[in-house]
């Protein structure tokens, strides 16, 4: 298996080099035969990377411990599913996963673009082949997952128990795929810049890939938050750690792009800005991989510090120089065709949304690299913690939330006073009313109240849009559910966008609730003793021990009562895995309760010899809305990305479509 994998990677390396050379030479000399062989070489490299990845997966399942990576990241005791996750448990496998995703996406995007916008393909295929070449070079020469150990151990070391979780199975591959998938929009941008065809065509070719990258990475970030919340046991889901921040940066830039691209499509403006953002998104994703893998910024995610850092830095520098020169060379072709007429217009709201997102990117980037800057310039080592990021990004996020409600209701160019009244009366009323209700219910935190009111306002704007659309169709005689489905189907981008916005409102509600209203108590309960936290009474019913294959479990059985009635029996515990005795992992108990969607989050800090349990108890309101928001986010992007027109070959409707009022969100 090891030899097969290694040889496949070498073969893929050669084919990627061939693909890059023939594609770029063919583009330069305009020779179709070279271009054809370039594409074939790229498909071939893709196939060989798939073979290498299958070889590694098979080596894991067959417990081939003669391969160092397999011995270090899996053991015979692990279930086949966990063994599968060991693939990306370490650095070399993560890089192979990166290469695998990149190879598949490259082949798919080149194949699809060849059918729709063939003029983009030569440079695009060449660029993708070069990126693939870089990763394959690292994989074959510096960090090979197929490296052998002299003597195969009888059993492997196993995966770090903290990584043995459903989250581990989905979060790293999603995040890695997210990083990697910015390569396709980047390659299309480079192709557009090189060919100089900078109209709207390349944006149309690019949009689905950008949306895909953005969605995958968004899901990766949410899955990471979910994993941290359910596994790490500090009661939170986002710690503003450097490794988290660098993953957020390209996503923020891509969010800005998805909006500003519409301004370019519609009004021919912001062209340089958009190209700049596209280049930034890709460079930030490489920067993210570099920071995660090089250890230049100290982080609680202490990955192995390895030799690949300088290579990534070189790659980053080279892409920056090449892409900035290209952009500079094409500046005259990127002149704006329109101008911002009014402050209160759709395009201005997009502009402000972009400025806010870029400001947030810049502030987060600055906070993340500040320790490096400080050490280099002042010679003092400092740490920038969550307070900085909360202080700066909190207001920006609130402004973004408000804009999310305002923007979609503004008209292009300028909005009349009458339309403003018509669109904003109800949402503003709902927002103000919810603020007042919250104050009446006893909420005294100013910013929490403002933020909740803003969320209610945005919620109402979206509901109003759906309601108006549905009502118009119901007047035409459609029953409500049919009207809703028809409405969304006719304007997928617009209503998919609204569903994403709705998801973001829920995420915002969860963040506001858990940021402002988290309760945190340390308790020690003797056997039979009770304590009250908020509206919950916890009773320690005793400590228990169980032996499972590969691990020992200790848990405290606790009865939870809320308002006098038994709510649940929970078992927060600690698991000790074979080979990892020094590092027991917490098994956190999370109970979500009605009506405030509070998570009762209980961590067993230590089971004590006298039968008492030391516990850390958090009450986290509204956190489940974050995960609900994540589901809506995914649903919305799927709606928005679904192909609008029926494909060739499927029968088209005989009757021409009714002229929809073409307002794209």
């Amino acid at each position, binding site marked *: 298996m090891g030899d097969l994998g290694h040889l496949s990677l070498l073969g893929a390396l050669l084919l990627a080099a061939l693909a890059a050379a023939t594609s770029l030479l063919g583009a330069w000399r305009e020779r179709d035969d070279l271009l054809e062989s370039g594409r074939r070489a790229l498909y071939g490299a893709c196939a060989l990377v798939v073979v290498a990845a299958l070889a590694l997966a098979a080596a894991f399942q067959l417990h081939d411990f003669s391969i160092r990576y397999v011995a270090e990241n899996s053991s015979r005791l692990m279930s086949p599913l966990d063994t599968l996750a060991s693939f990306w448990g370490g650095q070399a496998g993560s890089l192979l996963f990166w290469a695998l995703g990149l190879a598949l996406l490259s082949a798919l995007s080149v194949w699809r673009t060849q059918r729709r916008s063939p003029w983009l393909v030569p440079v695009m295929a060449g660029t993708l082949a070069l990126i693939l070449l870089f990763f394959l070079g690292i994989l074959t020469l510096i960090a090979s997952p197929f490296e052998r150990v002299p003597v195969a151990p009888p059993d492997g070391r196993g995966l770090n128990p903290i990584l043995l979780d459903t989250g581990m199975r989905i979060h790293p591959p999603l995040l890695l795929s997210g990083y990697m998938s910015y390569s396709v929009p980047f390659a299309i941008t480079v192709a557009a810049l090189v060919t100089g065809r900078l109209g709207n065509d390349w944006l149309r070719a690019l949009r689905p890939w950008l949306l895909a990258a953005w969605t995958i990475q968004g899901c990766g970030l949410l899955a990471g938050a979910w994993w941290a919340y359910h596994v790490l046991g*500090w009661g939170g889901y986002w710690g503003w750690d450097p490794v988290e921040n660098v993953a957020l940066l390209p996503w923020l830039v891509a969010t800005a792009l998805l909006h500003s691209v519409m301004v370019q499509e519609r009004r021919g403006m912001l062209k340089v800005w958009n190209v700049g953002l596209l280049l930034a998104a890709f460079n930030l994703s490489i920067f993210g991989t570099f920071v995660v893998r090089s250890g230049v910024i100290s982080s609680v995610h202490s990955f192995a510090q390895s030799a690949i850092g300088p290579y990534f830095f070189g790659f980053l520098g080279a892409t920056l120089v090449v892409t900035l020169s290209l952009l500079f060379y094409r500046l005259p072709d990127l002149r704006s065709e329109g101008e911002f007429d009014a402050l209160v217009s759709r395009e201005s709201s997009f502009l402000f949304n972009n400025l806010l997102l870029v400001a947030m990117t810049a502030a987060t980037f600055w906070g993340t690299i500040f320790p490096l800057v400080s050490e280099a310039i002042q010679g003092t080592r400092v740490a920038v913690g969550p307070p900085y990021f909360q*202080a700066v990004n909190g207001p920006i996020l609130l402004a973004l939330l408000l804009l999310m409600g305002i923007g979609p209701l503004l008209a292009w160019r300028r909005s009349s006073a009458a339309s403003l009244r018509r669109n904003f009366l109800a949402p503003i009323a709902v927002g103000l009313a919810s603020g007042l209700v919250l104050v009446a219910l006893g909420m005294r935190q100013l910013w929490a109240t403002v933020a909740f009111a803003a969320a209610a306002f945005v919620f109402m704007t979206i509901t109003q849009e759906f309601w108006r659309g549905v009502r118009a169709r119901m007047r035409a005689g459609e029953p409500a559910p049919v009207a809703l489905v028809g409405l969304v189907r006719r304007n997928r981008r617009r209503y998919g966008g609204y569903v994403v916005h709705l998801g973001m409102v829920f995420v915002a509600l969860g963040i506001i609730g858990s940021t402002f209203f988290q309760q945190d108590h340390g308790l020690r309960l003797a056997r039979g003793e009770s304590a009250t936290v908020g509206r919950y009474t916890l009773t320690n019913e005793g400590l228990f021990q169980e032996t499972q294959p590969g691990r020992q479990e200790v848990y405290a059985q606790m009865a939870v009562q809320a308002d006098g009635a038994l709510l649940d029996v929970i078992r927060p515990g600690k698991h000790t895995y074979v080979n990892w005795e020094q590092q027991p992992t917490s098994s956190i108990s999370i109970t979500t309760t009605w009506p405030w969607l509070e998570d009762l989050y209980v961590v067993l*800090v230590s089971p004590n010899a006298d039968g008492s349990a*030391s516990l850390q108890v958090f009450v986290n309101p509204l956190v489940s809305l974050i995960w609900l928001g994540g589901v809506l986010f995914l649903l919305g992007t799927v709606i928005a990305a679904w192909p609008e027109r029926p494909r060739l070959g499927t029968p088209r409707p005989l009757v021409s479509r009714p002229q929809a009022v073409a307002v794209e969100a």
Partner: protein
Amino acid sequence: MIRPKVLAVGVVLAIAVAYLALTSLQTTTVYYLTVSELLSRGPSQQSVRVAGIVAPGSIAKDPSSLTLRFTVQDATGSLPVVYTGGTTPDIFAEKVEVVAEGKYGADGTFHATTLLAKCPSKFEGQVAQAKS
């Protein structure tokens, strides 16, 4: 071209964010020191982060108050730490590298509110975190 009014809003926004970022950076960054650096600076009311290795045999847990006492050390110095934040990172143990955030009190003890542990870097992809 961009109309002056639109431009003005953009500029105001940029300045506001830059101002916010710089002032927050001044008030929220903390020094990141080794044990010996902190010892040579002496006690202070300022919050700092200190990094060191947990001394073998120094960990004492008081289960009734969830207080954790231990000593961090580096090549040249050692410092007693009291941590009252509650949860400890799963990988917290003797000889593990930890980063504690808190204040170096006049009593010669470091009063930590946050405790982070770093994994022995032999194995990859390890994550651990605990917060107060």
